[in-house]
């Protein structure tokens, strides 16, 4: 199997997320990810990219979203770079209805960060001079875990 490309450039549109998911599927196949890890990668990447498009770029097309991927020490990394205003996923996320059995206390949105924290093996945010970088990490099977860039 040919290695998928290690870089993907998207435009800031939700429709571009389908291209990202196809690329992620190819990477998942190449690295032999199990079902749960595959689900986690798809989920986290959708949440992270949607966040960049919808909140970072405020749904305005024509802006770059650049994703790089590599494997190091048994971890598959995705670094998502954008040129949007600063974003801080490390800030505390208000609990979603926790402590209340009331359906009305649930917020329909705002679950993206919660899901990222729950499903990403690692999550690192960096503020760049001209944007943001969010790096996600996921464990890969041991026979594919050598440090490589496809």
């Amino acid at each position, binding site marked *: 199997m040919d290695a998928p490309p290690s870089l993907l450039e998207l435009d800031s549109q*939700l429709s571009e*997320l*389908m291209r990202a*998911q196809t690329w992620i599927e190819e990477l998942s196949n190449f690295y032999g990810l199990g*079902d*749960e890890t595959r*689900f*986690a990668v*798809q*989920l986290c990447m*959708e*949440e992270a990219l*949607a966040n960049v498009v919808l909140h970072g770029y405020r749904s305005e097309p024509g802006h770059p979203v650049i994703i790089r991927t590599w494997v190091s020490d048994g971890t598959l990394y995705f670094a998502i770079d954008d040129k949007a205003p600063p974003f801080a996923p490390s800030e505390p996320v208000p*609990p*979603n*209805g*926790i402590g*209340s*059995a*009331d*359906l*009305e*206390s*649930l*917020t*329909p*949105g*705002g*679950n*993206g960060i*919660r*899901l990222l924290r*729950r*499903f990403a093996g690692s999550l690192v945010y960096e503020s760049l001079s001209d944007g943001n970088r969010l790096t996600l990490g996921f464990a890969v099977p041991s026979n594919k875990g050598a440090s490589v860039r496809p």
Partner: protein
Amino acid sequence: MTFSTESMNGDITRVILDGRLDIQGAASIDLRMNVLAGSTRFLLLDLGSVSFLGSMGLRSIVLPAQAIKRRGGKMALLNPVPMVEEVLKASNIGEIIPIFHDLDDAVAALR
């Protein structure tokens, strides 16, 4: 994402989804879910064939559930696959909109 409905005894509408509740999947069901939220008192959302659930999909569940509740009704979730159930629990939605793995139990809870 395919969307089908089934009328059950006790004025319950069972909505059966098949596919991915990602951004596109959520967009494809939002209108029909909102219509049902305005017309159905008891909604059973069958997630047994939903292979993926993201935050936009969660929104497509929570908004109708809130609307149904305001109208004096109830909503329940049926048979999410394990990873989908993990998403529901991680967002705390699973604690507030009940999840069942048995159809009879779900129906009993809605009546």
